[in-house]
């Protein structure tokens, strides 16, 4: 009954084009932003901020990046982690080698560096599609990591190849505590997520989806395939690059190229598949699911079975449950959690009188 839009009339196209046309959604979303932007950093403990919420946000950003490329523009990619690596190491080198480089500028430059590399590896998409393109981006995944390992300049000749992210400070304020790092991550992710939503609901997003759904028709309408696809690669890699830089600076602190391996790329791909391909909110839901579920199982399995299973079997059982749940979700709702949410909303509009 609360979720009704009766009496809310849209009298202009601008109102009709809002992200949340229904007032209840707007209020709900504002509350969500307040909770996660203000209440959580004040109330949550260090473990939650450091080990759960910050990585969820960072992976959400990377998932948004991949979703732009795969979900909206229809170009399958297995190189997201490599583009994150480009972002992380670009930020490190910009801050290391340029005196007085402001952190936010370094973040943007890291994104741009990743975008440049993304465009380069996006070039094959003009010729090949689907699985074949996925294999081409797989090459990007291995090549980029190899380059970062091969040339020690990127890791400032660190003997182990591991680099330690410098301290983050903006306008003299040092982001050292988990709360401060979380707030910084939240702000960057919120702004970029909004920009992504704006992109996909405007002409740029329509161009991407047109190319995804029917490329010949898109061409006939006047879209240039090359420009549209490469823009998708650039924007997607920009998001992955910024996510990679945040990963290094506000999450783990020390990174090595091998950390950005194929496993991580797959993890991000799972996030968008489970969250919802072609949905910005789905990126957040998927990231939360993939990060939270193993932690949940970590706590749940010993709680349920105690030590009866033995540590080795317990950890395998977690993997089995994790895999099983992913398959279950894909069968029940192939369009992901975002679609489930949408269906729930449609039902809620009619509840409690569905007829």
């Amino acid at each position: 009954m609360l979720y009704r839009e009766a009496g809310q009339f849209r009298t202009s196209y601008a109102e009709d084009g809002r992200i949340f046309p229904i007032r209840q959604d707007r209020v709900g979303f504002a509350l969500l932003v307040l909770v996660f932007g203000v209440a959580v950093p004040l109330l949550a403990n260090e473990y939650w901020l450091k080990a759960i919420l910050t990585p969820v946000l960072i992976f959400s950003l990377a998932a948004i990046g991949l979703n732009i490329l795969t979900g909206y523009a229809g170009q399958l990619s297995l190189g997201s982690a490599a583009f994150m690596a480009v972002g992380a190491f670009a930020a490190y080198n910009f801050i290391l080698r340029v005196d007085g480089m402001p952190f936010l500028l370094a973040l943007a430059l890291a994104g741009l560096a990743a975008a440049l590399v993304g465009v380069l590896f996006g070039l094959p998409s003009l010729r090949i599609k689907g699985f074949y393109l996925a294999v081409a981006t797989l090459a990007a995944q291995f090549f980029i990591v190899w380059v970062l390992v091969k040339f020690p300049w990127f890791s400032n000749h660190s003997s182990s190849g591991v680099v330690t992210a410098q301290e983050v400070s903006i306008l003299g304020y040092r982001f050292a505590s988990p709360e401060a790092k979380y707030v910084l991550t939240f702000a960057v992710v919120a702004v970029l997520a909004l920009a992504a939503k704006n992109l996909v609901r405007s002409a740029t997003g329509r161009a991407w989806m047109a190319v995804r759904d029917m490329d010949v028709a898109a061409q006939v309408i006047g879209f240039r395939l090359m420009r549209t696809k490469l823009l998708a690669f650039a924007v997607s890699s920009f998001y992955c690059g910024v996510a990679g830089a945040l990963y290094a600076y506000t999450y783990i602190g020390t990174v090595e190229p091998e950390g950005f391996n194929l496993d991580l790329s797959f993890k991000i791909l799972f996030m968008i598949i489970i969250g919802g391909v072609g949905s910005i909110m789905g990126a957040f839901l998927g990231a939360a699911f993939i990060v939270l579920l193993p932690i949940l199982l970590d706590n749940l399995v010993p709680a349920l079975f105690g030590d009866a299973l033995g540590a080795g079997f317990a950890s395998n059982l977690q993997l089995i449950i994790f895999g099983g749940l992913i398959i279950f979700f894909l069968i029940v709702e192939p369009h992901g959690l975002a679609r489930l949410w949408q269906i729930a909303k449609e039902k809620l509009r009619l509840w409690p009188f569905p007829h």
Partner: protein
Amino acid sequence: MVRQSGDVIVDLRNISLRFGGVKALTDISFDVREHEIRSIIGPNGAGKSSMLNVINGVYHPQEGQIHFRGQLRRRMEPHHAAEQGIARTFQNIALFKGMTVLDNIMTGRALKMRCNFLQHAFYWGAAQREESAHRLKVEEIIEFLEIQSIRKTPVGRLPYGLQKRVELARALAAEPHILLLDEPMAGMNVEEKQDMCRFILDVNDHYGTTIVLIEHDMGVVMDISDRVVVLDYGRKIGDGLPDEVKGNPEVIAAYLGTAH
């Protein structure tokens, strides 16, 4: 009734198109005049759709010349054709399945939108004003084609007849000079065909759009066309007013077969 038609707008001269050893089109010449409804008919596999693909740059003929508004056109890509004001619909519906009706039609305005992606990312201001301005135009077309009630529906959920109508709407959104329609009435029942005929004639009347039409329903073709060109096995076997074509022995032979 012969409507007033203008100068030659598309002039195709000696067009030949091959795919490997298969000759899709052989030495075809015909012209399209401004404001007319020009139909292309012929049995299956005659090369009708290939002909449209040549006109809007999807296929590149090995021989022959295309003059567009009196100017020789060099090798051209589809987006060039779109920029020249050529829009089309497809035989097998080529809508963007994952998008709503409104978004599908909005894509038709793409070439008229000027904002870049950074403005889109910011959205408020120029990009939003542009979006609203084009939405207004799109709403006119939605009203014209009587599809107001489905504007927010994903096109995948619509029945076939409505999908065809949405595809026409998307083509019209570009405000084309020339509209290429590839079997707009295939698979429709009588009422849907009547509606579609009315829309085609209205477009031709109101906007003065030149229409090149491929259609199998001879009743429709003979009723609404100004001139008809007949293809068979990639060759032109007839060209002229509907009545002339109807009486052409070669055309009758192609459609009905000849006694041997």
